[in-house]
């Protein structure tokens, strides 16, 4: 009977694990919904600001330090990892594509890491990490990403870097998150550029005749940096939605595995219990048969 006791203990502990992973799955699902609606919430600003930039460009203004295309010598990569684990393989996937990118780059490359898990990975690679941001709030705010984008903008404008890319897990769907590296600065239309993701087709009015106050250059200078900040904010929101989606799926798998394990354990518990009953029955009937003789 000691055997059945052991199995009963395991059934109980696997059952507890299942409850925990189930709860974690539900929390991650709620967080994922919140951050994917935050991504959608940040969209209108990006769309309107980009179409404003485009209409100003159509009126002949196109010089701004953030648009300057230079021969690339120094580049910066901002990689958005997560703070917490139990998010499936998204950090490992992103780390793989970031290391690949680093090893293929022929330029002087500096890296900014966001998320504790990223810091862990980068210690292993030879990347030159210039800054690390951790303690990401679960409800991401513009205040969190602003220093990241501000530093990127300033160092690009000061020509410390000629190219700024972001690496993050693109939220394709709940089940798929794709590690993606795209260009942020120079902030130009480019196949790999982040602005090609923003669809402004719904907002195509071009105000060619509009009066501009105080003047076109001042306006342009004030829109463009804000748009860059917005795009980086949106990227991180998306990275966060990916984190929660991956966490939800990982916890769902864990719950399913616990379920399978439980049913296996239950089966072997039942068969051991049954065989001990059968053995007892056999003994009893044997002894009855012996007494009858």
């Amino acid at each position: 009977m000691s055997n059945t006791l052991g199995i009963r203990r395991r059934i109980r502990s696997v059952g507890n694990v299942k409850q925990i992973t189930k709860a974690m799955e539900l929390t991650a699902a709620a967080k994922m919904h919140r951050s994917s609606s935050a991504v959608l919430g940040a969209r209108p600003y990006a769309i309107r600001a980009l179409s404003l930039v485009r209409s100003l460009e159509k009126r002949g203004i196109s010089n701004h330090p953030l648009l300057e295309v230079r021969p690339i010598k120094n580049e910066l990569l901002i990689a958005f990892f997560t703070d917490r684990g139990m998010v499936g393989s998204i950090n490992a996937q992103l780390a793989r594509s970031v290391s690949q990118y680093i090893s293929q780059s022929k330029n002087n490359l500096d890296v900014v890491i966001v998320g504790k898990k990223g810091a862990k990975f980068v210690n292993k690679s030879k990347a030159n990490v210039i800054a690390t941001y951790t303690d990401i709030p679960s409800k991401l705010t513009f205040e969190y990403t602003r220093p990241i984008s501000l530093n990127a903008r300033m160092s690009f404008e000061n020509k410390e870097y000629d190219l700024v890319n972001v690496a993050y897990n693109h939220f394709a769907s709940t089940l798929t998150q794709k590690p993606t590296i795209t260009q942020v600065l120079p902030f130009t239309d480019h196949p790999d550029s982040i602005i090609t993701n923003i669809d402004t087709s719904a907002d195509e009015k071009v105000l060619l005749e509009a009066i501009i106050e105080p003047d076109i250059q001042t306006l342009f200078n004030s829109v463009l940096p804000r748009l860059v900040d917005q795009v980086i904010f949106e990227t991180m929101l998306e990275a966060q939605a990916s984190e929660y989606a991956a966490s939800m799926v990982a916890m769902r798998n864990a719950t399913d595995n616990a379920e399978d394990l439980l049913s296996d354990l239950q089966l072997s518990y039942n068969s051991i219990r049954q065989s001990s009953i059968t053995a007892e029955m056999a003994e009893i009937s044997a002894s009855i048969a012996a007494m009858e003789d």
Partner: protein
Amino acid sequence: MPITFSLISQDKVVDELEADEVLLPTANGQIGILPNHVDLITTIQTGEITIKSHGKESHYAVFGGFAEVTGKEVTVLADRAEHADSIDLAAAEQAHRNAEVMLKDAKDDQELSNALGLIERNLNRIDIVKRHRHTNHHPKSPENIQ
């Protein structure tokens, strides 16, 4: 023929409504927008946006940004924006006091400009609430107190 007014901040669409008149705090001072206004693109300063619709007024606190005006539409892209009714006066006053402490303790230009920004923003919020106190019986807790 009313104007479609939309107020968009960096994290959400704050409000979208029909208006008869829109008052905007632009770089060149307060301007009033009526239907069929000439097309205009302008920067917005920290201040107050007033919307007049069917004889009623609603007020928003805004902190920097731009406005795009056409004959039928006014779109404001604000760094921050909130409806006057959602400003918590006590919280704004507390944030203002905290910012003044920050200003005194500021060690570099970055901290100084942060503190000044917070003071400007919260003075604007306090100002707007006090000016429209009679319409502000139900303060909701604001999401972005700084």
